[in-house]
């Protein structure tokens, strides 16, 4: 079927969408409503093809009990339907126009899904363009794609790999491990589900014969895992998650809290009410020493969050959320470096997020309170109670307006935050306390230009303690980009300068002490921090490049610390040479100066990565060269290093089929210093490896 351009560009009438039957469900019954407007005109200049006002397509039943993921979908048209109408028909699968993949065969439309359908419910729509340009929905069906009659969703995927390495050469390694080492890792996912329920699990493991490189001090262990279960009816939903996850709660007392634990959720299907309860470890865990991570009272937080959309008519516009937590623990664990101190605390938050005037205005507010024992349970001072609030108003005043023919997007906003001096939460370790910040910002996008500007005014010592000084911090941040539109050449290629882009980013921070400490009147502060970054680059079909330069300066007007200046330049590129070679060169140059002491030091970092396919699917190589050269004061030894790997694939891995490969891999690193008695330190290790891999899919 052709697309009909005249119909698409001619006079358009309002669409006619016959009412759909309410019981759409998970069946293959047609729910077509009849077109009510008689189509008078044909399109495309062809002889008038009179639309039959009343014809009903049917969906051909599947040969088997359940529809497979790649099974063609056949729409049966009335045998006496005027063939001229065929050119006016279009098919949508999940609201995506797939007309180009529909074949017409004897009053049948055969839809071959261009992508393998996922299991679950899909929509199929047949539309006809009327002679007057109107759109008639001739048929609408819900398709249920199932794994089998027994169960709708069932999948198991795994990616397993392992290798045995034999070191046949080494030098300069102080304490080399055993000559033969082994390692293996894998990830597995499984899911099952049907109309109202779904359960899924995923996890990974690591084995390493060198215990120092194992997980959590073990040769073999599982690392992270996650199990999800969900149940949904027409009116409500419920679910749980166990393992390593972030509940998604994001407010002043809890944000980005990715930890091991258990969370439960339930609510109404229309999202007007949802409740999440959680119990999670405060410590970041991997491995199976603590399977659920919540067995220790002294290392967990627990709480809940409730979201309500109180007004039915405004359920997309007003959301109220309340959250509370209580717990005790330290802020440390795998992947975290800190002074791990055990604290006890609790807190609550209430927030409102609203949209007005057709989503052009956002008003958001939050108030939170915490109790936090800074100096330990049952010692020193009691837990400190502290408050925080945040309010934001942002407006898109001229949405849809155009400037010189191009739409521009303009947002302005103001935000006010106040966080008490001793506001702290176990579930939000990133929060910056002790500040009153008023922020004004604007965001502008027009044609090839975009810009962002933000101005902050911030003071500390929110609790107005005489013992502490009060500093004022004024920040100005600007970011701008220019991406010119490039018309391709006649042959469709890009001109020699490709698709270029340009950027500028600048920031300025000014800190001064507006009220000194009564205890330390000589303790003063007055400094400025500035940075400016210029960047440019271009994209081509098979390569791109990027260049940037950053200037940073720090001036201390009371000479507490040194004035400093830093210049950094970075240039990198990527080249794809046919299909067998990729190159990734990069260079960074950095110059740091202490303007008070006269010290300076320079760093030069050169990297070159190359991936070579010598024989496709059989022999490939990877090389990575790096030069790290430092000069000036505080000099450290230079290093030249080369990492390389050549892999010969004896048997290509395929789904549920073991792959076998052998490899030669290794590195060489040369370390030089610039002292009078130069001392070369040559390190190298070389290995042969036998590798096995097994991708599993069901």
């Amino acid at each position, binding site marked *: 079927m052709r697309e009909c351009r005249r119909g698409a560009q001619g006079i358009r009438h309002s669409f006619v969408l016959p009412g759909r039957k309410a019981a759409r469900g998970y069946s293959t019954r047609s729910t077509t409503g009849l077109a009510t407007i008689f189509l008078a005109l044909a399109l495309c200049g062809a002889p008038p093809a009179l639309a039959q006002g009343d014809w009903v397509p049917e969906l051909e039943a599947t040969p088997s009990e359940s529809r497979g993921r790649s099974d063609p979908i056949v729409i049966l048209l009335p045998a006496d339907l005027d063939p001229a109408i065929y050119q006016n028909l279009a098919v949508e699968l999940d609201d995506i126009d797939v007309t180009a993949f529909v074949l017409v065969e004897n009053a049948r439309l055969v839809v071959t899904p261009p992508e393998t359908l996922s299991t679950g419910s899909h929509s199929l729509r047949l539309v006809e363009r009327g002679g007057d340009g109107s759109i008639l929905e001739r048929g609408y069906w819900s398709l249920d794609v199932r794994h089998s009659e027994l169960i709708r969703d069932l999948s198991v995927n795994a990616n397993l790999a392992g290798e045995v390495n034999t070191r046949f050469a080494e030098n300069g390694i102080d304490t080399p491990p055993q000559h033969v080492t082994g390692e293996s*890792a894998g990830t597995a996912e499984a899911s099952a589900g049907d109309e109202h329920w779904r359960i899924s699990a995923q996890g990974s493991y690591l084995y390493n014969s060198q215990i120092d490189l194992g997980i959590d001090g073990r040769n073999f262990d599982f690392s992270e895992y996650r199990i999800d279960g969900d149940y949904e009816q027409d009116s409500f939903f419920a679910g749980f998650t166990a393992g390593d996850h972030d509940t998604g709660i994001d407010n002043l007392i809890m944000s980005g809290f990715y930890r091991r634990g258990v969370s439960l959720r339930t609510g109404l299907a229309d999202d007007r009410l949802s409740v999440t309860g959680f119990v999670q470890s405060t410590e970041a865990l991997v491995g199976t020493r603590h399977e659920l991570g919540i067995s220790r009272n002294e290392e967990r937080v627990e709480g809940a969050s409730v979201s309500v959309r109180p007004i039915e008519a405004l359920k997309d516009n007003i959301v109220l959320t309340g959250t509370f937590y209580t717990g005790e623990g330290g802020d440390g664990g795998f992947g975290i470096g800190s002074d791990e101190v055990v604290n006890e605390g609790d807190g609550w938050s209430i927030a409102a997020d609203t949209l007005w005037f057709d989503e052009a205005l956002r008003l958001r507010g939050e108030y939170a309170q915490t109790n936090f024992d800074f100096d330990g349970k049952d010692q020193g001072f009691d837990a*400190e109670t502290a408050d925080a609030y945040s309010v934001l108003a942002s407006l898109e005043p001229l949405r849809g307006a155009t400037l010189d023919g191009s739409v521009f997007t303009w947002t302005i906003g103001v935000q006010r935050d106040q966080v008490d001096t001793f506001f702290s939460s176990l579930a939000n370790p990133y929060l910056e306390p002790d500040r009153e910040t008023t922020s004004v910002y604007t965001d502008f996008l027009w044609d090839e230009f975009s810009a962002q500007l933000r101005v902050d005014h911030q003071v500390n010592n929110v609790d107005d303690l005489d013992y502490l000084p009060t500093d004022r911090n004024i920040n100005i941040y600007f970011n701008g980009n220019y991406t010119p539109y490039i018309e391709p050449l006649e042959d469709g290629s890009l001109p020699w300068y490709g698709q270029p882009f340009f950027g500028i980013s600048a920031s300025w921070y000014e800190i001064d002490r507006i009220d000194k400490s009564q205890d330390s009147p000589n303790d003063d502060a007055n400094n400025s921090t500035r940075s400016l970054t210029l960047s440019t680059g271009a994209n081509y079909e098979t390569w791109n490049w990027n260049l940037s330069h950053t200037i940073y300066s720090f001036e201390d007007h009371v000479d507490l610390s040194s004035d400093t200046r830093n210049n950094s330049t970075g240039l990198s590129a990527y080249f794809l040479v046919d299909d067998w070679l990729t190159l990734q060169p990069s260079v960074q140059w950095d110059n740091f100066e202490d303007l008070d002491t006269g010290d300076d030091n320079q760093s030069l970092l050169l990297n070159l990565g190359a991936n070579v396919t010598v024989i496709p699917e059989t022999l490939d190589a990877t090389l990575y060269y790096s030069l790290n050269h430092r000069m000036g004061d505080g000099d450290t030894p230079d290093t030249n290093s080369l990492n390389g790997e050549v892999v010969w694939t004896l048997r290509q891995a395929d789904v549920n089929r073991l792959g076998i490969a052998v490899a030669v891999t290794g590195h060489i690193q040369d370390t030089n210093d610039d002292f009078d008695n130069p001392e070369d330190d040559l390190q190298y290790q070389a290995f042969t490896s036998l590798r096995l891999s097994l991708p599993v899919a069901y």
Partner: protein
Amino acid sequence: MKLRFLPLALVFLVTASALLLAPGAFAGILSVDTTQARIPVSSVGPSTVTVTWQVLRLGGSAPSNPGTISSPSGTLIVNGTVLATNQRPLSRFAPGPPATTESLIFTETFTVPQAVAFRAIKSGVPIVYQRTFTDSLPTTPPSSLSGTTLLTPSGPGSAPFNVSRMELRFDDGSRFKVLPKGRRLRAVARLNTSGNGLIRGQWEIATAATTAGTPVFRTLALVRRPVAGGRPVTITSPPLPTRFEGNNLVRLRLDDPEVLFDEPQLQYYVTPESPLPQRRDPQPMLVTSPSLGTPLTLTTRFSWQALPGAHLYKLEIFGAPPGPGDNVATNEVVTDVPLDRAPNVESVRGLTPLTGIVVPAAVTEVRLQDFTLEHLPGDRRYEWSVKALDKEGAVIGRSPAREIYKP
């Protein structure tokens, strides 16, 4: 008169004899001072401070009075109560030339816990850091003297430049990854800072080419990030190398400021390239039309550069987040060297398209039909992207997500 001066003379003779005859008779610590009488510390987090002690020692009358000046620990005191102890000992050998004062310098760096600063603020007094230095040369009594310096909780303008916390994760939030060769991966470091300065460090990796034996780290990219007034900072790594099969390690090592906690590192294991289509990363696709700012109408032409190996192209339109944009994020930076060629589709990741069109590989430009556009309410912003699929259904190419407005 002779009798009255006799006791004094005897005392003098005895003392002189003791001084002259006893080996190293007197080599004592005369004073213990610090170069800074007051050192500001952060009031809202732990602080890493450097204290320099100057110990003045007097050499005795003997030709040589060697000894070791040492201090086993330092204590943090608030209102007379010892709240924390720095267990790191300080020790230095003093040769002890006769009758000469020696100046010995001891420099130490340690962390002042937030709990101690909290107590000091609540009590309205500074923190007293005290060390006692002892001379090993045997004297009676042993020569020992204490010195103190004051640590005063201060504002962000003068707090020491610190990184008090570093959390490393991969860009999907996990802390361990198993992924096929060639897949894109980044690490994200979230730092809690105080004070003012320039974070200088580098992303380092130990590839599988070394971890089969002894891991050897090399520098992947330099990191330079200013901090003013202490605030959370997020630093994203460049794309991590995923071409070496096996166990790989990544870390963010800081040169300045110095950190006293063990810097964390992450592991990721690279497996051979996956035959499963959904486990391969797409190449970037170049879009040639429409230009930014073109509204979405029936006449809007979407066009792109053909990608070798493509079997079909799919243009997808996604919903943009409702409402005006949020406040500009200024605390996040992405290390952009080496560059990342991956298309930026973060804004549409995990979203289901609202509508779109699928065309065969011979077609590289389309205009959407009215029955397609009817799925999209007007006066709204959307995001769109084109992806290329091969015969197996693998996504082999993708364009970056772009915003478009429908009137």
